[in-house]
């Protein structure tokens, strides 16, 4: 088995909010998260708002560092690196952001923004850079003349393609795509997803795909991790996850997605209540406040991550009961 390109090991990240009279409050954004990403695969993090998926993406990118735990990139622990030591590695780890307008500097020409990683990480001369930028523009379906323009002259879908062009300019190994299509209209969404797929095949890219949209995730991913309140509740192969979700949260999440087909009538699991605040996460299993199968054990003890073989991991006390299988090991 090959070595994972990215490996996150028991990462924890809390943010301080509100240094009020009652002392500091902490947001538990990422809570003991571990997973591996294999070269060439698309690994997705799904979850609802505030579940810590974006924070996890930024941990891997070293935009923030974990409070404890490690992040390995190609076997090297990058969580302890300084910003300066990290800089050369940034050519290999690129990012695509949700907001195509906000992620581009409104005062800099498109071609200079696409060429920025080239300027930073290669010793190409300006002419060679421009030539490469024109190639990249064509690659994402824009023309060289677009390069002379400023971001406000483009539509959201076009800008997202510009963002992709910038991310692939220095032939990265892994791209972290944080909700890359959430801000786009459906017909444009498909354009961007298809482009990402195509580039992955041709450039042998690895993706960490972060999204709240389970339908989009199903289309693009190989393996999926479901997050809830800063913690991963289930990791599985795409097929396993959609065919037989084990964790009660995954089941509810999948059943909540409206299907664009009026002939399909599925049994919906309606969750009670809201997502608890990450400032005051529940004790025991984080999901117990909304879980229909909750018992005393769930309220008191944090469930262990159980491995059911084939990479299917579930963080639930009663995972054996729901899956009908016995766990191979407990992590």
């Amino acid at each position: 088995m090959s070595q994972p390109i990215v490996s996150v090991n028991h990462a924890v990240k809390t943010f301080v909010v509100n240094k009020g009279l009652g002392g500091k409050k902490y947001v538990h954004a990422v809570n003991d998260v571990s997973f591996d990403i294999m070269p060439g695969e698309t690994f997705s993090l799904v979850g609802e708002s505030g579940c810590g998926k974006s924070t996890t993406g930024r941990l891997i990118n070293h935009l923030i560092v974990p409070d404890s735990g490690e992040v390995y990139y190609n076997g090297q622990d990058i969580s302890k690196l300084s910003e300066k030591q990290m800089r050369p590695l940034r050519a290999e780890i690129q990012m695509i952001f949700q907001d195509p307008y906000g992620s581009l500097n409104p005062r800099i020409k498109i071609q200079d923004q696409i060429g920025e990683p080239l300027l930073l990480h290669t010793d190409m001369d300006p002419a060679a850079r421009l030539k490469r930028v024109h190639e990249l523009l064509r690659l994402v379906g824009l023309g060289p003349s677009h390069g002379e323009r400023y971001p406000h002259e483009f539509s959201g879908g076009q800008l997202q393609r510009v963002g992709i062009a910038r991310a692939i300019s220095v032939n990265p190994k892994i791209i972290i795509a944080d909700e890359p299509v959430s801000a786009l209209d459906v017909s444009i969404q498909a354009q961007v997803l298809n482009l990402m797929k195509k580039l992955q095949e041709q450039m042998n890219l690895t993706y960490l795909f972060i999204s709240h949209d389970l339908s989009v995730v199903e289309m693009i991913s190989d393996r999926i991790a479901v997050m809830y309140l800063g913690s991963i509740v289930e990791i599985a192969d795409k097929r396993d996850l959609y065919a037989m979700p084990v964790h009660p949260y995954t089941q509810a999440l999948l059943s909540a997605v409206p299907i664009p087909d009026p002939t399909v009538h599925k049994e919906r699991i309606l969750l009670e209540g809201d997502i608890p605040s990450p400032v005051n996460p529940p004790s025991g299993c984080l999901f117990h406040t909304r879980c229909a199968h909750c018992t005393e054990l769930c309220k008191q003890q944090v469930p262990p991550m159980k491995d059911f073989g084939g990479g299917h991991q579930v963080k639930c006390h009663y995972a054996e009961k729901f899956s009908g299988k016995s766990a191979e090991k407990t992590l």
Partner: protein
Amino acid sequence: MAERLLDVTGLTTTFRTGKKTSVTAVNNVTFSLDRGEILGLVGESGCGKSVTSLSIMGLFEDTAGKVASGSIVFDGEDLTKLTTKQMRSIRGKRISMIFQNPMSSLNSCMRVEAQLIEAIRLHNDVSKSEARQRASKMLSAVGIPDPEQTLRSYPHQLSGGMSQRVMIAMALCCEPEMMIADEPTTALDVTIQAQILELMKDIRSRNNTSILLITHDLGVVAEMCSRALVMYAGRIVEEASVEELFASPIHPYTVGLIASVPKLGSGVTSLPSIPGSVPDLSAMPQGCKFAPRCKYAQAVCRQTEPELAPVPGGNGRKCRCHLFGKEEGKEAQA
């Protein structure tokens, strides 16, 4: 046969962009809504679906927008001919609206109770305490577990799902005959979205309220509506029952739109997409507005704009296309 509640005919809404220039955001939109029906209005951003709803509500005072022509007949009365004052007595009482962003639709400086009481007393001659009781009842009706606690809260103390429930309670407090829901669940998480959609269905079956559901999410339409209108560039391009629309879409835009949405559990790994992007309102192509992105487009499509015509044999179904949906187009589609 259900009773007709709303009849929109030839609605055209324009926005002033300069001293003499204006753009047409909604062009010749015609549709109707029965009592107790949930009608979907689907389209991508900028297609004019929200402007259509604002036109019905007459919410264009002091803005650049104006209903240029057409009629909006609500229960026998043409809303475009009413005075501002008459309109005010209909808005909120007989037609109410829910917006996309519940957080910013509530006044952040007022307690929920004050806002609900105000909404109730605006249209009903009741005392403050009666209004408060009614507000409390409304909140439990929309599934808020602790109405008293919620009444005393400020909007920022509520979660997104809770604020949307409060908004719905506010929209319902005068028992309107019609509710316009403009992307009511777009800002919410899926599990919360499921709760709100369930609530809206429930309201409809309890009060026989008509709902005009405006959304870009085809999944929501398939789940909620009986009939749907597809809008593109300010025009309705297709009207059909939801079953027919998803089973056999006719207009190439609808076909492309439905195909480009990944369907959960379908196992697809690539999606057909519609090339290009939506035309700018100020630079609309001549002829069919979808022609530049349509793979079937022919000379006639680029020159003259097709009418929204009934589809032969399709029980109230309409389509705006030169090539498809008509008898002579049948072969072309096959």
